[in-house]
């Protein structure tokens, strides 16, 4: 069971608190994505699992064992770095072989493993080349091969696709998902790209400012955010959120694609009239910005392209697509009926 556990983990860089009292369990065999903006602590956590950026206090467990003070090379984890970190002075074969040699794997076995792994990643023709002669995508495969050949309990990846061009990135995404399906090993993947996270993850761990904002499957995080940060980090364009009642401190939110636009008043629970201020034609759908008379603006994603700027339209959202948040940004799940009453009706 290659389950990873963080218990009461803290990380300080000098005086600066980056992570404080974090508790987290990453289940064995999952493709878990650590997602968040720059500086949120996701890479810090990843490096703690690897052992190359130890926690200031707290414990980390792998497979039930406390690895908090175990040296990186003895943890049974492998890592693919953002800039690949392949050894520039060794050939591809040398790069893949290096860890095996250090672990005293006999030569015949090493050769067999290298042959297998290089076939899987498609590097067999490049084994005797030096990294400086390889393209970005090829170097990334070397980094991947080096990690795979160790047959680790956990694969760690630090934004491995961010330095590739868009087309290659999309292709590699698919390959990584297939690799995970084949190997069934725990993958811990760090990224700031929420599209990437949504596409690849079994579980997303969304972080901000050293704290976990929400943890769950992509669909759950998307449909049922725990707080405003999550609601607005996931989804493009982000969820529309605005104040419903200043006095009660309640904010209301709904996703752009859950809105019904019409020239007549709709039938949804939340109904309001507004004017279209901008229109962006995206091809398969159209993005409208609607201004309400009280100053609030919302983004609406619609399959209808027929609306024009300056049109007066009616916005309508069903009750199950509405989310309510309190003053501190937390999701309100209790007493929703009363809030619906507040929101319902038209004005």
């Amino acid at each position, binding site marked *: 069971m290659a389950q990873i556990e963080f218990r009461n983990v803290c990380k300080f860089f000098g005086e600066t608190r980056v992570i404080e009292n974090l508790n987290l369990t990453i289940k064995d065999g999952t493709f878990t994505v650590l997602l968040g903006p720059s500086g949120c602590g996701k890479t810090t956590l990843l490096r703690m699992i690897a052992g190359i950026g130890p926690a200031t206090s707290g414990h980390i467990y792998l497979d039930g064992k406390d690895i908090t003070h175990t040296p990186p090379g003895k943890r049974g984890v492998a890592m693919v770095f953002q800039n690949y970190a392949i050894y520039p002075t060794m050939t591809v074969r040398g790069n893949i072989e290096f*860890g095996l040699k250090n672990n005293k794997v006999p030569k015949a076995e090493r050769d067999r493993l290298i042959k297998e792994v290089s076939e899987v990643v498609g590097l067999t023709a490049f084994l005797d080349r030096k990294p400086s002669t390889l393209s970005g995508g090829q170097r990334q495969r070397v980094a991947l091969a080096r990690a795979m050949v160790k047959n680790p309990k956990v694969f760690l990846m630090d934004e491995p696709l961010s330095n590739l061009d868009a087309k290659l990135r999309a292709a590699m995404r698919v390959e990584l998902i297939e690799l995970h399906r084949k190997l069934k090993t725990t993958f811990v993947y760090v990224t700031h790209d929420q599209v990437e996270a949504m596409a690849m993850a079994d579980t997303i761990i969304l972080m901000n400012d050293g704290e976990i904002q929400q943890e769950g499957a992509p669909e759950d995080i998307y449909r049922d955010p725990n707080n405003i940060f999550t609601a607005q980090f996931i989804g493009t364009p982000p969820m529309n959120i605005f104040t419903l009642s200043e006095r009660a401190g309640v904010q209301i939110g709904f996703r752009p694609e859950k809105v019904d636009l019409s020239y007549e008043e709709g039938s949804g629970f939340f109904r309001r009239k507004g004017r279209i201020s901008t229109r962006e034609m995206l091809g398969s759908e159209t993005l409208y910005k609607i201004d309400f008379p009280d100053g609030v603006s919302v983004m609406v994603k619609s399959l209808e392209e027929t609306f024009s700027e300056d049109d007066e339209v009616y916005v309508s959202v069903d009750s199950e697509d509405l989310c309510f948040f309190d003053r501190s940004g937390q999701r309100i799940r209790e007493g929703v009926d009363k809030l619906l009453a507040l929101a319902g009706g038209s004005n």
Partner: protein
Amino acid sequence: MNQQPETKRRFLTKEKILPYIMVAPAMSFLLVFTFYPMVNLVYLSFFDYNLINPNKKFVGWRNYYDLFFLRKDFVVALKNTAVYTGAVVFFVILLALLLALWIRKDSKLHHFVQSCAFTPHLVAMLSCAMIWSWIMDSNSYGLFNTVLSFFNISPLRWLNSSTTAMLSVVIVSVWKSIGYYCLIIVSALKAIPAEIYEAAELDNTPRYRMFFRIILPLLSPQLFFLLVTITINSFRVFDTVRIMTEGGPGNATDVISFYIYRYAFRHFRIGYASAAGTILMVILMILTAVYFKVLSKRVHYQ
């Protein structure tokens, strides 16, 4: 309006001349004070030229014959220079590398040690030589001998004994140079991305392998540069020898640069000294050429 002939314009425009004007002073100084002296040195080496009697007498290869066959002291000077260079190159690179590996992580203590090590480099060789003359003084109050006395060993005649004189000169040069070269190596070590060290840690790399398979190959351009620089600089050693030993005792620390100086300004035999100088120049050129040809193949560039 009258038009100037096209062809005349094209060759002598202000823009075309400008670069030449800008490099002219630098090139003139180079020609007069570097290249002409090099040529003149070879020229003078074929003459018997005594400063006191300004009439030169052409003697062909005789100066060279004297250098190598008639007098024995030039060969001794060559040998001493080789020994000195070999020792300094070896110890400076070894110690600078070890020190650099030891203090490469950023910290107040390490910056302090680096600054202290660097201090001798900024100080005049003359002063270093004088201070070390005291440290190595043959009287019992010299520091080295004072230390020996704590172990009940009788004082050594450091600079006055032909067996230890060269060692003493080497020690001073090594002491003065380590700080600077250590600084260069530390910069090179810092240029290696941290991720490479981290990847190697994850590969369970033992310390010695980390050094030989990863750090050393990445350091080889700088080490190559160091090798060339230290070697060429070693041929210039003069101040230490002049201050501490005057080439002695006997010939023990006579090196090429001191030899040339002696014959030019003590014996006033310009022609003969020029021949020795020409040999020095030839050696330096050969060394530079050899280094760049042979070693550039072995160096790894990223």
